[in-house]
């Protein structure tokens, strides 16, 4: 078991290493570089040379990669071009904001998704299922920029209950941020919950049709005891990986929603730094998003491994 965990962690690092090389090479291959972007029309002669020296761009690419990677491991991603401030200072509040948004969506969305999924499965083809399933399909199919815009129109403009877009400084305190995040959270949670509820529904239905559930019924196990003991533990195992992917997707910045609501999270930073050709920040973001995906998936795999007796004993024996 321990061996397996170590192996998976090592594999995770290798993935990150490959991602870092790809992003580094990618930014190298693109025409132009930080200095030409920064100096614009003055990008020639003495000034360009000076800029190269200042940013350390005059040494070979692999040397720059090594020093960049070594610093990145320590959390130092260099300087952002646009704001001329350390990238880690730019990233810090953005990560915090994205975390706030993601966790709010997770804490509201996942329980609702589970409950809806289970209800629709247990009352399959009956009224509760038909009603909820119709709504979830609806929620799934409306693109988020439309639902977000509609939310702004109805809640913020017509009813004037909540602010429509977020116009607070990036490093605002949590309490001040709170009223601003309600609409974005609703917009994100709608899609996420609908997806997950449908996944849970089909998983529960599959387990309900299994021979061991039929056996439990024929054994005289009361309905709800059967649901909680025989159905849910087996039905929710496969949900773990989907939940993990959703969390990673949320943390990675829900780009469209953040842009619509002008929310200062990671997703909007990605858009901004790409349009500003702020390559060092793009590099840093790529690495950070990759690490989020890798670590959350690793956690989900380990959790599945721990909860599934079949895999657990298999691994121990081998």
């Amino acid at each position, binding site marked *: 078991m321990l061996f397996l965990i170590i192996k998976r962690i090592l594999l995770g690092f290798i993935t990150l290493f490959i991602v870092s090389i790809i992003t580094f090479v990618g930014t190298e291959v693109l025409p132009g570089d930080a200095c030409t972007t920064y100096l614009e029309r003055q990008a020639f002669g003495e000034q360009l040379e000076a800029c190269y020296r200042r940013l350390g761009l005059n040494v070979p690419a692999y040397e720059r990669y090594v020093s960049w990677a070594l610093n990145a491991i320590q959390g130092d991603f260099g300087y952002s071009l646009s704001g001329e401030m350390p990238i880690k200072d730019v990233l810090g509040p953005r990560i915090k904001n994205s975390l706030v948004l993601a966790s709010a969506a997770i804490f509201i969305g996942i329980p609702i998704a589970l409950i809806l999924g289970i209800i629709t499965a247990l009352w399959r083809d009956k009224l509760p299922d038909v009603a909820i399933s119709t709504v979830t399909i609806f929620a799934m199919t409306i693109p988020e920029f439309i639902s977000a815009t509609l939310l702004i129109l109805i809640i913020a403009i017509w009813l004037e209950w909540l602010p429509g877009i977020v116009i607070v400084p990036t490093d605002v305190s949590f309490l001040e941020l709170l009223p601003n995040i309600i609409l974005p959270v609703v917009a994100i949670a709608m899609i996420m919950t609908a997806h997950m509820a449908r996944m849970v529904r089909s998983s529960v239905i599959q387990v309900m*049709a299994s021979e061991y559930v039929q*056996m439990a019924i*024929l*054994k*005289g196990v009361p309905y709800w005891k059967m649901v909680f003991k025989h159905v849910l533990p*087996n039905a929710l195992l496969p949900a773990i990986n989907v939940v993990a992917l959703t969390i990673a997707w949320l943390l990675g910045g829900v780009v469209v929603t953040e842009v619509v609501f002008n929310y200062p999270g990671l997703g909007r930073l990605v858009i901004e730094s790409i349009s500003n050709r702020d390559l060092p920040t793009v590099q840093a973001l790529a690495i950070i998003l990759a690490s989020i995906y890798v670590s959350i998936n690793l956690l989900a795999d380990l959790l599945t491994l721990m909860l599934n*007796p*079949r895999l657990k*004993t298999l691994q121990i024996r081998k």
Partner: protein
Amino acid sequence: MMTDIIQKVKNLSIGFRSKKGDEILILKNISTNIKKGETVGIVGESGSGKSTLALAMMGYVKHGLYTIGGECQFNSSNLLKMKSKDLEKIRGRKIAMIPQNAGQALTPNLKIGYQIDEALQLHSDLDEREREKKISELLNKVRLPSPETIALRYPHELSGGQQQRVAVAMALAGTPDLLLLDEPTTGLDVTTQAHVLELLNFIAKDTGTSMVYVSHDLGAIAQVSDRIIVMYSGEIVLEGPSRDILKKPIHPYTYGLLKSIPKLSLAGLPESMPGSQPQPGTIQGGCSFFDRCNFSDDNCKNNSPKLEFLKDLNTSVRCFNYEKLVNENEVSQTVNKIKNKSLDKEILNLSEVSISYAKQKLLDQIFNRISDENPTVKDINIDIKKGETIALVGESGSGKSTILKSIAGLLRTKDGLIRFDEKRNLSSDLKERDPNDLRIIQLIFQNPDESLNPNHTVEEIIAQPLKLYFGLKGEELKKNIIDLLQKVRLGEFYMSRYPRQLSGGEKQRVAVARAFAAKPDIILCDEVTSALDVSVQAAVLNLLQQLKEDFGTTYIFVSHDLAVVRAISDRVAVLYQGRLCEVGPSNDVYKFPSHPYTEVLLGAVLEPDPDIKPKLVAEDIVEERPPEKGCSFQGRCSRIVGDICKKEIPPWQLTDSGNAIRCHIPIKELQKQQF
């Protein structure tokens, strides 16, 4: 005497609605009584409605089906109309179920002990300590070793036989009055099956519980039941005392069925029944067995017979012409003897073949070798003659399918040589074989549902090898396909059909046609009849035999069913844990003296005859891997002679008839012990 009846099924009809809105019946007007203390066998092929009937006896109707009429009475209340609260008190306590596939019927995330405890909590007043004791008692009763440790295991950590025993223990926890058994031994190895049946018989006697035993296997039914109900497309066609039904069946279906089962005592292919059971909803009136019946007349075509009770025979029968059968003698089996041609040309030779599933470590991958001291299959030496049928038999894990895979090139050998026609080396795997090497060996798989591509028509399926190996096109291709279809007794109109539109037997025929399309020299048959119904099995076996005689093909036939092997093969090789135990002409292998393992296998075969009881010679332990040293069968052998069996690999000994047995006990001595 009403009091003696424990479950009364009255005019029960269950069905579903088709997409067109028609009502389609799975069970048609079934009436029967189950008496206290008796064991009733319900027998029928897949789709006959037998499982639906058994489940209805617990008041359970599967999702999608519904009760159309009639009732299942238990203690004079109708289970099918009962509220689920009241059903929960009867299920598991009064009526318990032992499921077909215990591996799937035990909840995977709950420990064995908990699952039995759950039944005890629900259906007894015992406190925690008493329950704990009871769990051990129950596990002991079903003869599981060390109950305390078994209780702490998860279902997947037990073998198939052990899982089935746990299911029995779970059913017994509520001390039910009626036990329903739905194919409880199907899918188990022959020896395990015989042991589980013996246990069930013991429990029936010991507890006086009534049993309803549902199975497609007349052999198993014969061992347990007092009374037999035969079902055919949702109807009871014959019901009566077990011995009469098995010895003198007076319904044409049962008569044909018994004739089509291969028997151990008879070499040769049994007579086959034409056609297959009609799909629910396709019968247009008239007797449902009309199409396949040898005794039918015009009356049968237009009118459907009623179930008629014959007082002097104590039997109910649904047939207009049963009298024709009353005067028939006991089911006498006529077999088509296999003609043995002179076999001298060697076609395939396996020498010193070992096969390993061990994962290649990095170093091994670099040197392209397999290092495994104790490979799954070892020391296989067989030479196969052109035109013979050689059978590999053994329980699951005996390596029989592994050897097939290696011959087919799906698995490379670790050591040894596989040679075709004395010169071509086939020890390598698929990637290194040229197209002609691939063509000469074809495979037919166990389950045609999985081996035929569901998105291809029959035409496309059979066209593939013709295009690939012979480059046929257009009219010529079509002519060849029609030709092949006719060879497997399927009409031209099958070309445009998809596998899902075919019955099990028809699918397997298509698979056979595909194999023959390549004009192979050798066909590997991997349990080709085990997924088929009994009445269809004989037809497929006859077809294979016919094709072999026409084309001179060599068959390597893998099966766990010794009676089927007896019917079709010229020579038999018995395997245990990937090592050969006995090789010889099938006539001699089925006669004593035998290798102790062959003896165990032969003893465990169930025949559809209440007078032939299985002989249980060895324990049904499951060994995970072959022993490192000595005889492969040492762990289970009842004739073990001492340390020599554990230390030295036994020598090959020849009997007078040319049968080779690998055992430390001298042939003469074996002969004495086994008679």
